[in-house]
C-alpha cells in the first residue's frame, strides 16, 4: 500500500504539470482581455499600456514559465519566510492578481473561512442527513418513507440552487425578516450573541446546499444498500439467526459503504471549489465567487492559480478514495 501511494504521488507530478499547461493554454488562447471591463472612456493606448504593465507583452511560454516559477518556487519560499522568518525569497515576485494587484494566495487564504463554513458545513450536514435516509429507504423499499425520500431528493437534485436560494431569501428575509439575505464575511464569533448571528447567516445558504448534497448522496446510499440486501451472504446471516440490526448495520452497511465513501471523498474537493451560484445568491464572497469574478475580469493569474489548486485537490482526493477502498475492502490489494 505504501509503495502504491508513493508511486501514485510521483505519477501525480507530471500529471499536474500537464494539467497546469493545459489550463494556461486554455485561458490564454481563449478570447478575452483584462482591460475589457474598463469604461470605454479610457483610451485604447492607455489600455495597451495597462496590458503591457500586466506582462502581456511577453511571449506565451515566458509567461507560463514565469507562473511556474512564481507558484512552485516563490510562493513556497514566501510561506517559509512567513512561518520561520527565514527569508530565502529575496522579495521575489509572487503570483499577482491582475484585478487587485495583490498576491493571489493571500486572497485565497482570506476567502477560505467563509467557504469552509458554508460549503463545508453543508457537505457535512448533507452527508449526515443522506446516510440514514438512504439506509431506511433501501430497507423499507417502496414504503411511504422511501417515496417521500425519493421525492425530496428528486426535488433537491433537480431544482437549481439559484431558485431555492432566492425562494428562501424572499420567504425568510423579505417576508419574515428572520435571516439576513447578505452574508457578513467580517463577522467574528466571540460570544453567544455573535454565535447566534453566525448561525442565522449560515442557515439559508447551508440549507440550500445541504439539500442538494443530501439528495445526491442519499440516492447512492440507497442504491448501494439495495444491491447488497439481495446478496446471498445476507440470507446466510439471517439463516444463522443474527439479529436484524446486526445484519443491517454491521454486514450490509459496511459493504454498502464502499462505493459511497468513494463518492463522498471525491466530493470533498468541490467543497474547496466553493459553490459559485449559492455564494453569489447569498453574497458569501468565498472561493466560488472569487473564481467567477476573476473569470469575468479575465484575471488569468487568479483563474490559473485557483483552477490549478482545485486540480491538485482532485488528484489528491482521488488517491485518498483509492486508498480508502483498500482499507474498507480487504479483498482489494494494490501491491
Amino acid at each position, binding site marked *: 500500500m505504501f509503495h502504491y501511494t508513493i508511486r501514485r504521488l510521483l505519477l501525480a507530478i507530471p500529471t499536474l504539470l500537464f494539467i497546469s499547461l493545459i489550463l494556461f493554454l486554455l485561458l490564454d488562447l481563449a478570447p*478575452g482581455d483584462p482591460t475589457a471591463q474598463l469604461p470605454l*472612456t479610457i483610451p485604447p493606448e*492607455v489600455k495597451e499600456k*495597462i496590458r503591457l504593465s500586466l506582462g502581456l507583452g511577453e511571449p506565451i511560454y515566458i509567461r507560463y514559465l514565469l507562473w511556474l516559477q512564481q507558484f512552485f518556487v516563490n510562493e513556497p519560499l514566501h510561506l517559509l519566510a512567513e512561518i520561520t522568518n527565514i527569508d530565502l525569497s529575496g522579495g521575489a515576485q509572487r503570483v499577482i492578481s491582475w484585478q487587485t494587484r495583490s498576491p493571489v494566495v493571500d486572497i485565497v487564504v*482570506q476567502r477560505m473561512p467563509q467557504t469552509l463554513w458554508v460549503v463545508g458545513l453543508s457537505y457535512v450536514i448533507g452527508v449526515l442527513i443522506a446516510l440514514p435516509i438512504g439506509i431506511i429507504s433501501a430497507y423499507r423499499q417502496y414504503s411511504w418513507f422511501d417515496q417521500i425520500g425519493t421525492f425530496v431528493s428528486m426535488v433537491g437534485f433537480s431544482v437549481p440552487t439559484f431558485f431555492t436560494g432566492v425562494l428562501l431569501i424572499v420567504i425568510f428575509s423579505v417576508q419574515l425578516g428572520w435571516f439576513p439575505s447578505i452574508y457578513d464575511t467580517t463577522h467574528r464569533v466571540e460570544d453567544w450573541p455573535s454565535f447566534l448571528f453566525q448561525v442565522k447567516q449560515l442557515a439559508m445558504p447551508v440549507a440550500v446546499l445541504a439539500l442538494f448534497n443530501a439528495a445526491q448522496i442519499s440516492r447512492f446510499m440507497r442504491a448501494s444498500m439495495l444491491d447488497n440486501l439481495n446478496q446471498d451472504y445476507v440470507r446466510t446471516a439471517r439463516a444463522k439467526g443474527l439479529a436484524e440490526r446486526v445484519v443491517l448495520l454491521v454486514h450490509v452497511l459496511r459493504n454498502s459503504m464502499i462505493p459511497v465513501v468513494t463518492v463522498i471523498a471525491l466530493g470533498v474537493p468541490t467543497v474547496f471549489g466553493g459553490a459559485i451560484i449559492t455564494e453569489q445568491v447569498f453574497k458569501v464572497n468565498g472561493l466560488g465567487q472569487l473564481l467567477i469574478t476573476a473569470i469575468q475580469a479575465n484575471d488569468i493569474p487568479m483563474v490559473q492559480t485557483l483552477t490549478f489548486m482545485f486540480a491538485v485537490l482532485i488528484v489528491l482526493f482521488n488517491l485518498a478514495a483509492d486508498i480508502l477502498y483498500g482499507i474498507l475492502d480487504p479483498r482489494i490489494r494494490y501491491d
Partner: protein
Amino acid sequence: MNVKFLTLAVAASLAAPLPSFAERASDGEVRIIYWQAPSILNPFLSGGTKDLESASLVLEPLGRYDQDGNMVAWLAQSIPTVENGGVSEDLTTITWKLKDGILWSDGTSVSSHDVKFTADYCMHPEGGCSQLSNFDDVASVDVIDDLTVKVTFGVPKPFPYGPFMGSTSPIIQRAQFENCMGAKAPECTEANFNPIGTGPFRVTEFRPNDVISMEANPNYRDPSKPAFASLVFKGGGDATAAGRSVLETGEFDYAWNLQLAPDVLANMEAAGKGTVVSAFGTLVERIMVNLTNPDPALGDERSTAAHPHPFLTDINVRKALSMAIDRELLVEIGYGVAGRPTCNILPAPPIYASNANDACLIHDIEGANNSLDEAGWMPGPDGIRQRDGVRISILYQTSTNAVRQDFQALIKQWWSEIGVETELRNIDASVFFGGDPGSPDTYQKFYADLEMYANNFDGTDPEVYMGNWKCDESPSPDTQWQGANMPRYCDPEYEALLDEMSKTGDLNERARLAKAMNDMLMQNFIMIPLVDRGRVSAHSNSLGGVVLNTWDSELWNAADWHRID
C-alpha cells in the same frame, strides 16, 4: 412615469430635513452595497467605476463636479479660470492653490508636493496608469510653494481641468506611494488597499472583491463631519439582490446602479423601506452606422475606408432606419425611470444639449417608407427593398445583454415594416469590447452593418468625445484597429469645427461649437441615438443627504450623509 418619478424624487429631497449640525461620528454605521465588488482602492491602477467610487470616500481631488456638472473647489481654494488669473491668457498653464491646513488621515499636512507627486506617479511610463488620459499634453507640474502647484501644458488647453479634477484624478500621498512608482506600482499591495487620504472616511480593513470597512477620518477638515462613525462597503451579488437589500429588507442604506427591469424596481420600492433616485449624464445607447463595406469577400480591406458601404452611404437609408424606431417604447421596455429618449449623441450637460434634432422622437414608419421610395429603393419580390441589385439586408450586432437583445428584436420588427431585412447577432461583452486585434468580433473591427452599444465621456467637457469622429480616429489595420470612429466618418467641415473648439476658451462659444458638431452628426444620421441612459440608485428612507451625481463619484458628498430618525 418619468415626470412623476422626478417630481417625487425632488419632493423627497426637499422634504429631507436640513443637515442638523450633529457631531462627527454620532450617527452610527452607514452600509453601502455595490453589486460589483471593489478590487483595489488605487484609482490609478483600476478604471472600474466600483473601484473609483469606493476610493472616492478616501481620496479626493482638487476640484469636483456637482450634480449639475458645475465645477466646485474641493481641496483647492477655488477653481482657477482665466478671469481669476488661475489659467494663463495663452491657455497653457493652470495654477491651483490648496486650502490651508488640510491634513491626511494620518495627521500629516497635505502639500503641493503631494499634488506634483500624483502627476508623476500617473505619468510614469511603466506604471500602466489607467487615468493617464487626464494628464494628456501635460509638459510639467511644478511646485511654486507649499500650497501652490502649476501645471504647464505643451499646447494651449482651452479646458485645462483634466489633471486633479473629479473622481478619476484624486491626490495620493507622496510619503505613502513614494516607493511605488512605475513597475513597482502593483507590488505595493498595502498602499493600494489602504490609501491614506483626505476624505471623510479612512480604511480599517480592505478585503478585495468582498467588503471594505471604514471609519470616520479623525482629521477630516470639517470637524462636524462625517455624521457616521463607520461605514461598510459590501460588494458582490447582482443588482436585484442589492436593490432588495435596501428597498425590501432594509439591511443596507445605499445601493448603487440598479439596472433592473422597470417593473421589478417599482415592485421593490412598493415595500416602502427606501427610495429610488435617478439622474442623467452623458451615456447614450446608440446604433453606429458602418459607412464602409464589411463584406467578408474583401479580406483585409473589410470595413475600411477603401470600400464604401453599398447602401448605408445613402443618407435616405440611414434616415429611414432612424425614423422607423419608436424610442419611447424602447425606454419603456428597457429602462423605465433610468432612461429617456434622445436624438443627440451629446445629450448633456444642459449647455451642450441641442434641440435641433428632436424630430426623431416621432415614430414615423410612413415617413421612413416615403423616404426610401423617393430614393428609388423599391420592394423586391421578397418584400425587401432593393436598388440596382443591392438589397437592404443588414447585419446588426451588439453585446450580449438582455435589454440589448430586446431592443434588437423590436428594431428588427420596425425595420421589417419598411422593407429592410435584419440579421441579429450578439457577442459576449468581454470579446466585443475586448479590443483584441486578433478577434473578428470586436466593436472596433465592426464586421457588420450596424452595431449598438452605449458610450459616454468623463467629466463635463465634450471636446475629446466629439474628437472621436475625426477621420484619423477610424479603426483600420494600419492602426491595429484602434480608434473610436466606428462609422469611419470623414468630413473636413466637421474637423474644422473641432479645430476651432480646440482654440476656444470661452465656455459659451465652446457650447455653440459642440452643438453644431452634434447636429452635423445627427442630421447626417452617422449614428442613430436611442436612449439617454441615467443612473439609478436607491437609498433607505433613513439615510439623508444623498445627492445623486452622474458627473463625479456617486459618493461625492458622503461627508454630508446623515441618519434621519
